């Protein structure tokens, strides 16, 4: 198993379902991801590649010319029980006034993590760009610069807002602080039965998408990459159009919305781009991809598919698609209108907004798809809290879990122990699933009191003295 140690990376992570076991296993392998566990004391050679920090830099460089090297030289056989893991201390990390939290997701350009504004205590998301990585992507730096300047000018409820921009030259990193979102429509779809949303819920999101698009088009911006993965949801289930990496802004004096470049995700591209047209009307690109998005969230399928990008583009180029039987008329008509092959005949945004399907709310459905859990946490608790706990309360090797309970775990363990613990956790969650949320948390708070231990900075100290100071 140790031979695969090197090859597995984030791609594996995304392919596997996020159960606690696979989660742990992935962390062992993925060198670059945000692991809480790191192997120690492995065989000498392996250690270099597995340890955080220095190894990563070298890995980055090696990625490019991996073929020219005899791969076997890099691997040293280690049995799984020879690797001993150590719980990584949740080391508090500050970027400016922001406290760093856990990983939320990974894009092509870098990671997205949670942050907490230590002044306002407002949750934020941060998109981290590594300049080194950016340089390797065609147009990478240019696209990011474009995205930043664009985001700065945009302000709408349904468009992601750029809060802050930080550059750390010594780390060669660029941090874009954005509004906090709990997940994308794509993640929600994947968790939904049949990978589709009930009509009422889809209607709500689609209306918000149109509102956002109307604003963008009014600001002469074409997004060009509308898809469920780029539509994020906040805690309040407000939809935010995000990822302006390939967006295009028209000049104030442009005659019309003619575009020359299309860079979005293949499955959501209109026929004119699939057929390689030299120029095409820009606004209609967003209409098409919104149509594909609506088709996708209502049916769980894609109107156009193909084994590879050539087949896919061939199918899109023909512009022929079928709509499942169960999709009845106002919606059927809307989808046909939005997915017309000829961009001139395709609905305009106003036509879409005034369509019958949009003006009448579908009847309430018997279920709504909830925002899916992040790493088994269905309430999406602040991931910054454990870092703050370990910073403020940790002493004598005592650790606290995310509720602030004292946990007495041994610091070192092997993979077998890890798997056993994960199994136990799974059983536990199955048992407690019946309990309501209020029940659970109340029992939590009662155990909290019982298990508290001496800490350097206790609440008792706070209770005693904070009032005595005059503000």
């Amino acid at each position, binding site marked *: 198993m140790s031979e695969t140690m090197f090859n597995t990376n984030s791609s594996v992570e995304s392919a596997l379902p996020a159960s606690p076991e696979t989660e742990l296993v992935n962390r062992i392998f993925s060198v670059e991801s945000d692991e809480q566990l790191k192997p120690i004391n492995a065989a000498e050679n392996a250690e270099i590649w597995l340890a955080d920090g220095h190894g990563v830099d070298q890995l980055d460089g090696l990625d490019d010319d991996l073929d020219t090297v005899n791969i076997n030289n890099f691997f040293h056989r280690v049995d799984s029980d020879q690797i001993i893991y150590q719980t990584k201390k949740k080391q508090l990390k500050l970027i400016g006034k922001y*406290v760093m939290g856990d990983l939320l997701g990974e894009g092509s350009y870098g990671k997205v993590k949670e942050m*907490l504004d*230590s*002044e*306002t*205590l*407002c*949750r934020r998301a941060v998109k981290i760009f590594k300049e080194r990585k950016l340089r390797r992507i065609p147009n990478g730096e240019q696209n990011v610069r474009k995205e930043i300047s664009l985001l700065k000018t945009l302000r709408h409820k349904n468009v992601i807002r750029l809060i802050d921009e930080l550059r750390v030259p010594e780390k060669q990193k660029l941090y874009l602080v954005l509004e*906090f979102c*709990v997940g994308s429509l794509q993640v929600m779809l994947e968790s939904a039965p049949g990978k589709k949303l009930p009509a009422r819920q889809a209607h709500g999101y689609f209306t918000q998408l149109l509102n956002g698009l109307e604003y963008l088009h009014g600001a002469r911006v074409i997004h060009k990459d509308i898809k469920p993965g780029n539509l994020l949801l*906040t*805690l*309040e289930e407000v939809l935010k159009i995000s990822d302006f990496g390939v967006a295009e802004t028209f000049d104030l004096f442009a005659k019309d919305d003619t575009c020359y470049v299309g860079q979005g995700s293949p499955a959501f591209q209109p026929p004119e781009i699939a057929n390689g047209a030299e120029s095409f009307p820009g606004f209609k690109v967003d209409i098409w991809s919104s149509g594909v998005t609506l088709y996708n969230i209502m049916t769980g399928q894609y109107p156009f598919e193909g084994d590879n990008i050539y087949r896919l583009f061939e199918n899109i180029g023909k512009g022929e698609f079928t709509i499942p039987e169960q999709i009845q008329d106002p919606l059927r008509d809307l989808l046909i209108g939005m997915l017309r092959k000829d961009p001139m005949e395709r609905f305009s945004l106003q036509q879409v907004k005034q369509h019958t399907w949009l003006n009448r709310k579908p009847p309430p459905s018997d279920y709504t798809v909830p*925002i899916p859990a992040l790493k088994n946490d*269905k*309430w*999406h*608790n*602040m991931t910054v*809290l454990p870092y*703050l*706990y370990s910073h*403020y*309360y940790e002493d004598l090797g005592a650790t606290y879990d995310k*509720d*602030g309970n004292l946990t007495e775990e041994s610091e070192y363990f092997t993979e077998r122990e890890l798997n056993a613990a994960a199994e136990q956790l799974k059983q536990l969650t199955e048992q407690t699933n019946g309990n309501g*949320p*209020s029940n659970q*948390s*109340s029992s939590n*708070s009662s155990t*909290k*009191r019982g298990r508290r231990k001496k800490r350097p*900075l206790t*609440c*008792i*100290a*706070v*209770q*005693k*003295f*904070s*009032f*005595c*100071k*005059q*503000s």
Partner: protein
Amino acid sequence: MSNLDINLNDYKIISTLGQCFEGKAIVSLAKHVPTNTMVAVKKFIMDMIKDNALVDFEIILMRQLLHPNILPYFTSFVNGPNVYVVSPLMAYGSCQDLLNQHFNEGLCEQAIVIILRDLLDALNYIHKKGYIHRAIRASHVLVSSTGKACLTGFRYACPIVCNGKWQKTIHSFPSSTKANLNWLSPELLEQNLLGYNEKSDIYSVGMVICELANGSEPFAGMSSTLMLTEKVRGCTPQLLDYTTVPRDINGDCSGGDGDISLKIINRRFSDNIHEMAAQCLNREPFYRPSAEQLLKHSLFKTIKNSLPLTDLLKPAIPLSDRVAFNKEDIENLDTFNYFANLQINTCEWDF
């Protein structure tokens, strides 16, 4: 009184009472010349305020509220780059002013109970109207010359009703709420999918009880991130008195880092008010009583037999008396202002 003019020239600014909105708004004592009445004029300096929706929201919301314990706005108008809001003069100022100027170790229980009843009355009203205040704190509770407490600070409020539906939980995080963080409930600060509801205000009421009793703001001098973790773990302040100030074996109060005055050590709050503070500060919103339930508490029955608040607040004197006492001061102030204006003119000569 309610048909005051919207002409700035009718208001003669007498003195500055204080600032709010992080210094971006100035509250002044003013005289409405035509009716010869004293009013408070709040000037929002819109050039400094980025989030002007907050000012709009507050004014629009205040027009929809009518309750004896909510500070009314007589009128509001725009003049140049500023927005002016005229409200009745609250002669004792805010409860925080009272604490800072006269009651460094906290108010007496009877005064707290009277203020608390007025505060809960106002809260009960706005909760039933479908709003969460989200900034309940002593500085947002003003006391009138007759000893009536009024709630202000509505620009942080949020509606519970959304699209005609009463929301079970709210998730929005108030913007520019930095100054109010110490009073906010743990569930509001956590910003997770569980959200919060109007019980969040009740937690802040608990904080205000402690603030009024102890004379200082809760979690004072603590970093906001530590305050957050303390709250999330369920740590709350207490009313400091004979029963709660910790003692060592000899019965001495070893204050640790702060010396606790004898007055605090020897005073005694009733069990009722201790209990009420603890109920309000329950970590679990579900177990906190509503404003309506709190108003039925036997604690408030004592008000009937107590002295009026104005007597309990002595030696603090209401503003109008102070102004009457120093009529000369005002005249001096006028001449001062006159010269100040002159000085601006002379500045033009000073190349």
